Each structure stands twice: as structure tokens, then as C-alpha cells.
């Protein structure tokens, strides 16, 4: 390539002379514009385009000893919760003499946290900074999520550059601008290009897409024994969101967390990564143990990786049970009160390392003892694809379930007969089973369904009862019929869902029956019990 520098230089000199004044004027103008913008417009822009980010940063007390930074897992609560405070605030209960700031930035991840953290006012104190580490945020589903655009846009204005430059970058859309089709394409590529490797077991699928496709074609059965689209979709979502192997070289979240570590070193923080719980139980039920292998293995690797870098990693992956997950049909990290308090306790105990003398026990044990688990809407209950341990009785055949005296042909929803109970013959149809005979490895819960005809709905004395006993434990759980159905003197559907205790397999029998101590008859038909 021949450069015509001789003519070009000559022209350039003329041009430079001609534009020198203009460049100076432009620089002066830009400096002036930056002053005007900072003084009159920046704060408004911050509130307009980065309000959540602005609020998150503002909510951090400058004198904080402990900063808890989380996404929605920090603050999402169940409407049944008595204490609706954030997870970070529960941590602060263990350190009442320390100043704690609990910051929530919904849908955020380490790539956003790093910007919030870099905006925290510096302090001479050696702070403890607890950063939520959400396993799902390492997945392609999250990395290429459409929420990313809004999040990336929000951080532009708070970056450490001249205000006018930040606004200019926002104006020129210097954020992750991808349309829906482009995102989907990237996501599909990630699902097919990332091949499984080094698995300690035989696995028939090469990548997420293949596994997802196979699961979708097999499907998951619902309570009625038919394929359930919603449950199949949930199972596939578990695969899409968790069935990956973290690439420590290229995963953007790894880079983000490493930048946080760097920042922590510069600011002399006690840095803590809190690996928040995922619904392993549901993942296992819907997809099987292979999915939990991926979840546990990824977390194990993350724990090792960041521990080696001097971070205190608190692994809470499996400490919250299924019933404490608020969104039963979504793969979220939204916990009810007990779930949030369990994570908080685990984190609080872990950071005793930094604040041993300030630690103060809470009433957590009493809380757990008194805690009533949430009644999960039966629509959302899980059902194993292999089939559940199910029992049913329409009282037409030989199955009696209790005393034959409690079967009548006075009324029936289907066929000619039904079961009943009333004062004097208080035990209606009863299913008695030995949990040890269950083909399922674990019995997590039971669903009781059927039709009830109640003469009087005002009675407190008519109940569906679940009873079980082992050597050390027992349960006697009742559900008032008046709360299960809406109309008296009419056949009504009812459904009861109950989470069984972990020792249930040790008990010799579980009895599920209709109990009626009132004077009015209560009939039961098409009785069905499903253990899952």
C-alpha cells in the first residue's frame, strides 16, 4: 500500500490550522456543558433512568459495618409471612450492635452489584460485604435475558466518568441492545454449543437443548394422570436454567465476581459470597437426580474457586425446602419467612468469623418450632413422572377402607354408594397404608382429593385427618371440611395438600380419614389419596 503522505501532510497542516480554533472551542464547550449538565440535569436523569440503582446506593448507610447485597431473594416474601423484612435485615438481628445495610436490586447479578459496590462511600472500617451469588445468574437463560438491557442501561449513569460522558453514552445506547430475536438466537446457540463434558455418569444428551427436547417429549403427568403442560414446562425450565457446566474462563459472571473481589481487596472488605438456595427438591422430582448433580457440582466448583481467592463462601444451596419456595411453578429464589430466616441464620453464623464478639442469638429455634408451613395450592403440587403412590375408592366395590357400616347408598356422587360419618359413628372412610411399602424413595407430601356432601357447613367437628406415628414422632393434622368446601347440602370438590415430615418413612402406618363428631351426616365419594 502506497501512502501519499507528501500531499496528505500538506493538506493536513492546512486542515489542522483551520480546525485548531474549532477544536479548542469544542473542548471548552464540552467542559462547560459538563458543568451545566452536572449542576442542572444529572440528578434528574439519575432519578429518571437509574432510579432503582440510585435508591440502592442511597439506601446504604455510609457508616455500615455489614452490607448485604441481594437480588429479589433478599426481599420477596410470601403473603403469609408474619415478618416481611428482608433477608439482610434478618442477618442484622444476629448483630444488633452493628450497623447493617440491606440492599435489594431486583433481577440483578454480580455484573450489576459491582457497580453498586463501587459507588459505596469508602470507610476506614473493615466492612463485611455480603454479596448474593445466585447459581441461575451463571446460566445462559439469565445472561441473555431481556431484563439485561434495562439493567445495563441503569448502570451507565452511575459509572465513574464525567457526568456528561455517562449521559452521552446513554444517548448513544452504549448498553446491551439486543432485540428479542437476537437474544433468542444467542440463547439457543448457548444451549446447543455448550457440550457436556467430564460427567461421572453415562448421560444420553449432548447439550441442554437435547435434554430439554427429550424431557418435553416425555412430559410430566399431572394429578389426573394426564400429561401436564405446565409441569412439563417447569421441568424443562429446570433443565434450561440449571443444566449447564460453568465455563470459568468465559462466563461473564465469573469476571464480575472477580472484579468484586478486586474491589474488596482495594477497599479492605471482609467479602462474603452467599450462595442462595435453589429448589433442589422440585428439580429432583421433576427432572431427576441428574439435574441436581449439575446444580450441586456447579456450586461446589464455585465454592472452591472463590474460596481459593480468599472469599468466605456460604453454601446455602440446599437449606430451603420446597414448601418455602414462594413460586411453585417458577425457577425463582423467592423464599417464605422460614426460608429467608434459614439463609440469614446460615450467613450470620458464617460471618461470626469476622464479628465473633458481636454475635447475638435470636429466637430462630422457637420460630422454627412454632412455624406453620404454607399450604401449597394443589394446582402447583408436584407429581412424579414415573407415577405416584396413589389410592382411590369410589365405595362401589370391595374396597371398604374402615367399617362397612360407614358405607351407604343414601347418597352418591358417582355410582350408588358413598362413605359417611356422623356422631356415633365418627370415623368415616379411612385409608391406612404402610409408608415403608411405598415404591417412592421419599415421601414428601400427600394430596387428598374427592367429593364431599355436608349436611351442615357450620360445624367445626367435621374434618379430614392425617395421622402418623413413629417411635419418636407423631402427626395428627386435621383440615376442617367447612374450610375445604363452599356449599352445604351439595356435592363439592375438595383437595388437601400436606407436606409430610422427613421421618414419615420410619412410621408403620399413615391413616387418612374423615372424622365427623357432629350430628349431621357428612358423605364422602370418589376419595383419592396421592403420595408424592
Amino acid at each position: 500500500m502506497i501512502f501519499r503522505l507528501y500531499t496528505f501532510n500538506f493538506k493536513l497542516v492546512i486542515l489542522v490550522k483551520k480546525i485548531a480554533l474549532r477544536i479548542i472551542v469544542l473542548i471548552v464547550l464540552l467542559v462547560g456543558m459538563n458543568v451545566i449538565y452536572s449542576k442542572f440535569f444529572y440528578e434528574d436523569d439519575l432519578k429518571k433512568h437509574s432510579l432503582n440503582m440510585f435508591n440502592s446506593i442511597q439506601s446504604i448507610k455510609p457508616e455500615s459495618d455489614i452490607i448485604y447485597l441481594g437480588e429479589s431473594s433478599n426481599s420477596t416474601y410470601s403473603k403469609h409471612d408474619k415478618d416481611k423484612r428482608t433477608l439482610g435485615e434478618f442477618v442484622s438481628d444476629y448483630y444488633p450492635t452493628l450497623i447493617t445495610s440491606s440492599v435489594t436490586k431486583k433481577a440483578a447479578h454480580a455484573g450489576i452489584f459491582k457497580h453498586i459496590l463501587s459507588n459505596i462511600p469508602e470507610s476506614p472500617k473493615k466492612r463485611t460485604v455480603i454479596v448474593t451469588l445466585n447459581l441461575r445468574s451463571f446460566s445462559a437463560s439469565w445472561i441473555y435475558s431481556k431484563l439485561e438491557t434495562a439493567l445495563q442501561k441503569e448502570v451507565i449513569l452511575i459509572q465513574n466518568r464525567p457526568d456528561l460522558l455517562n449521559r452521552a453514552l446513554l444517548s448513544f445506547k452504549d448498553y446491551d441492545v439486543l432485540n428479542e430475536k437476537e437474544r433468542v438466537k444467542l440463547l439457543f446457540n448457548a444451549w446447543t454449543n455448550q457440550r457436556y463434558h467430564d460427567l461421572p455418569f453415562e448421560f444420553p444428551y449432548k447439550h441442554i437443548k437435547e435434554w430439554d427436547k427429550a424431557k418435553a417429549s416425555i412430559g410430566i403427568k399431572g394429578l389426573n394422570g394426564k400429561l401436564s403442560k405446565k409441569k412439563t414446562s417447569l421441568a424443562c425450565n429446570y433443565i434450561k436454567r440449571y443444566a449447564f457446566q460453568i465455563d470459568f474462563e468465559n462466563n461473564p459472571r465469573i469476571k464480575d465476581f472477580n472484579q468484586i473481589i478486586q474491589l474488596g481487596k482495594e477497599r479492605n472488605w471482609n467479602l462474603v459470597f452467599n450462595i442462595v438456595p435453589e429448589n433442589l427438591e422440585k428439580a429432583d422430582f421433576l427432572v431427576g437426580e441428574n439435574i441436581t448433580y449439575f446444580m450441586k457440582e456447579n456450586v461446589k466448583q464455585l465454592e472452591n474457586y472463590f474460596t481459593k481467592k480468599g472469599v468466605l463462601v456460604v453454601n446455602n444451596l440446599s437449606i430451603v425446602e420446597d414448601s418455602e419456595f414462594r413460586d411453585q411453578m417458577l425457577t425463582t429464589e423467592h423464599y417464605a419467612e422460614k426460608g429467608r430466616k434459614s439463609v440469614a441464620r446460615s450467613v450470620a453464623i458464617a460471618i461470626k468469623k469476622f464479628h465473633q464478639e458481636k454475635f447475638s442469638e435470636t429466637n430462630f429455634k422457637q420460630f422454627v418450632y412454632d412455624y406453620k408451613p404454607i399450604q401449597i395450592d394443589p394446582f402447583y403440587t408436584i407429581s412424579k413422572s414415573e407415577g405416584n403412590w396413589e389410592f382411590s375408592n369410589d365405595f362401589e366395590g370391595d374396597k371398604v377402607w374402615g367399617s362397612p357400616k360407614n358405607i351407604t347408598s343414601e347418597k352418591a356422587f358417582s355410582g350408588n354408594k358413598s362413605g359417611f360419618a356422623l356422631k356415633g359413628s365418627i370415623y368415616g372412610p379411612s385409608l391406612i397404608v404402610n409408608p415403608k411399602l411405598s415404591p417412592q424413595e421419599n415421601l414428601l407430601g400427600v394430596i387428598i382429593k374427592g367429593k364431599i356432601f355436608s349436611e351442615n357447613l357450620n360445624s367445626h367437628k367435621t374434618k379430614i385427618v392425617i395421622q402418623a406415628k413413629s417411635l419418636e414422632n407423631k402427626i395428627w393434622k386435621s383440615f376442617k371440611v367447612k374450610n375445604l368446601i363452599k356449599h352445604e347440602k351439595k356435592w363439592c370438590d375438595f383437595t388437601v395438600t400436606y407436606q409430610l415430615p422427613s421421618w414419615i418413612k420410619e412410621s408403620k402406618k399413615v391413616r387418612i380419614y374423615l372424622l365427623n363428631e357432629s350430628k349431621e351426616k357428612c358423605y364422602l365419594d370418589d376419595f383419592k389419596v396421592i403420595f408424592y
Partner: protein
Amino acid sequence: MLFNTIDFIVFLPIVVFIYYLLPQKGRWILLLLASYFFYGSWKLNYLAFIIISTVIDYACGLKMDKIVSKKKKKPFLILSLVSNLGLLFFFKYYNFFAENLNSGIASNFPILEDVILPVGISFYTFQTLSYSVDVYHSRQKAESHLGYFALYVSFFPQLVAGPIERFSNLTPQFKTEKKINYQNISNGLRLILFGLFIKMVIADNVSGIVEKVYETPLAYSSWDVLLSSFLYSFQIYSDFFGYSTIAIGSARLLGINLMDNFKTPYLSRNIAEFWQRWHISLSTWFRDYLYYPMGGNRVNKFKWYLNVLTIFIVSGIWHGANWTFIFWGALFGIVYILEKLASKYIAFAERNVFFNAILILKTFVLTTLIWVFFRSKSIDEAFEFLSRIFEFSSQSEAELIVPLYVWFSLSLFIISEFLLFNSRFDEKLNKIAFPLRWTIYSILLFSILVFSGVDDFPFIYFQF
């Protein structure tokens, strides 16, 4: 790569700098590589279609050039038309036809879900078609240099949304040595600045406002819906005019003059004039390659009506595969014909300033109402929107809020339209003294940096 992104702001100066460093014989290589890079940054695979189109048209052009007989030339013209329009049909219209045929005659054409329309395919297809047709008619000598021809098809400033240039205007400029010229650089930068202002400050801010109303017109009062329809007129104009202005400015930095695509169209007194001022490169294309070959106005009245309607409907189809565009085109055609029929009765008005203003207002209102079909996703949606306007209802569940700075920038733009009537921003500024000129630059620059819309609204015409 969009014009209003940091990527382009980095890309353009690099290209311009290297361009002037290179000798003339190497410049086409740089521009071609830059153009392919520019296009490939959207989707590398689709670069193949430009290359295929280039090679076919280049070969057909050479073949036709060597043949005198039109009859013998015809197969090559057909090859060029079929290959170019075939690609365009496949990507842009196949699903539309399949869906309509499937529902109309219960056929079972498969719908292609994953087809993404290559950016700017309608523009470069028309550009190459004009070349083939011109060569066929011997109005244009075929280009023997594949590089220059490829550059004509893909020249990055006007590749994805025009102006649709003719070979005879563009290619000779590539071949002429361009020396670095202060005036070109200055005018180019002015146009880019002005184009960015109208795209980023006006169109991008108005887009979000208009979008909300179009999503749920029934939630807004009739006045708000009417206001949003007027705002859309400014949105689409500033969006496309902004793009064209940046394109012309970018080319000007390289010493290349592109044709003007807009000349204050909303100051037109009738629809005919509007189309002489709006998307001029497309209007003239249709005129030269469709309207004239159909006989133009040298036919009987009925045929002329048909010609006019055909042109407008084809123009509608060119814009998109949707009945709304066809309806939009047809409406323009009908209004065009009606105005022509009425022209002799209102000819006196065109000589009077007051009546001129009324006519301009009438054209603007008509155009605004017709744009409703262009903006709506379906004909039903368009009628729902229009019926909401004519309900004259003040009841609303939502309020249309137009921020003060949007009104301010819109006012500036409207004033500039009057000031720039029949002239161009860069040329107008030449006549203004340094302090005032720099005051204007400062206002534009500050507005771009501080008041631009922050949401991503791609150029509307990219979808065509």
C-alpha cells in the same frame, strides 16, 4: 451498526482517515471492506446475499452490454430481476403470501418462523435493479470493474436505508479522486450533527410517547390520540430524515455527494408535492422504472388512475408485507387522484399566501391520518385508532405526557423546517456568522448529549 451508536462514531472517522491516506486506486477496496464490515456487523451470513446479488447483476450487466438486440438481452434482465426480486420475495413477502393463501384458499404453505429480513434488502435490491434496467435499455454502460460495482451496491452510508442511488450518480464519484477538503468535512459533520439531533432528540423521544398510545388508544382521550398521530408524523419524518441526513453527511466526509431524500415534505400543498419532497429517491425510482414504463400520464384517464393507484400500492408493498401498507399506499393514491381532479378548482388558492397555509395544513392533516395505517399493526387496529379520534371523547384512563424538552426540540425542528425550505442545513449554515453558527452547534450537541431518548428505537426504515 447503527448510525446513532458509539460503534459508528468510532468506525466512521477511522474509515475517513484511512480513505484520505490511501491513493485513489486503493480507496474502493477500503470502502468496499468498510461497507461489508458495516453490513456484516448486523448479520454476517446475510452479507452473502449482497455478494450474490452483486455478482449476478455484474455478470448480467456485462452480458447485456455486449448484446445489441433487446430480445437477446432480455434473458439476462429477467435473470437479474428474478434473482433480486426472488430474494426479496422470499425474505419479505413469502410468509405474508403463505398466510393469506392459507387462510384464503385453505392451502397449506409452510410458515417460516425463523426468517429474519436482511437489513436494507429493499434498498439495495432496488438500487441494483435500476442498474440492470438501465443497462438493458442502454441508458447505462455496464461496469467492467467488479470492485466498483460491488461498492455501488454496498456503499455503507446509504446501504441499509438509502437514498437509493443511481449508478450514474454514484460510481463516477468513486472513480474520481477526492482530495481532502475542509468544506466537505465541515458540511459532512454539520449534516451528521443535524441528523443525529433529529433522530436522537426528536424521533427517539417521540417514539416512546407514540408507542404507548398506539398500544392502547382506547385508554386515551380523543385529543391525546390525535396528538399522538401528529407526533407520529414527526417521528417517522425525523427518524427517516435524520437517517438520510447522517447518510448524506457521512458520504460527504468522503467527498461523495448523495442525492437529497427529503425536502421539507410537510410544507407541501398537496399529496403530489408531498411525494416530490418525501423519500425522493424512492419516488423517482418508481417514477422512472414503473410509472413511465406503464405509460405515465400519456394514457387515457382511466388508465392513468390505474397507473397512479398501482404505483402507490406497489410503494405500499415495498414498505412491508402487511395489508396496512397496501391500504396506506392505496389511500395516498386515492387522495392523489382526488386532489388532481380538484386541482383546477383550487388553482387560485396556490397563488395566495393564506390559502397556501391552509393547503399545507390540509396536506399535513391528511398525511397524518394516512400514517395511522402505516403505524398500525393491522387494519382493525388502524380503524380503532381513527375511530377513537373521531369519538371526540375527553374520557381517558391514561394521560399523554409530552415532556417540555420534547416540545422545545420539536419547535426547534419545525422552525428549522421553515428556515430550510428548499435548502439544506449544511448549505444554510455556510451563510451564517461563526458565533451564531457555533451557538447552533452547541444547542444541537448539548441536546444530543443530554436530551436524547435513552430507549432503543431502531430506524423505522430499517425494517424495509
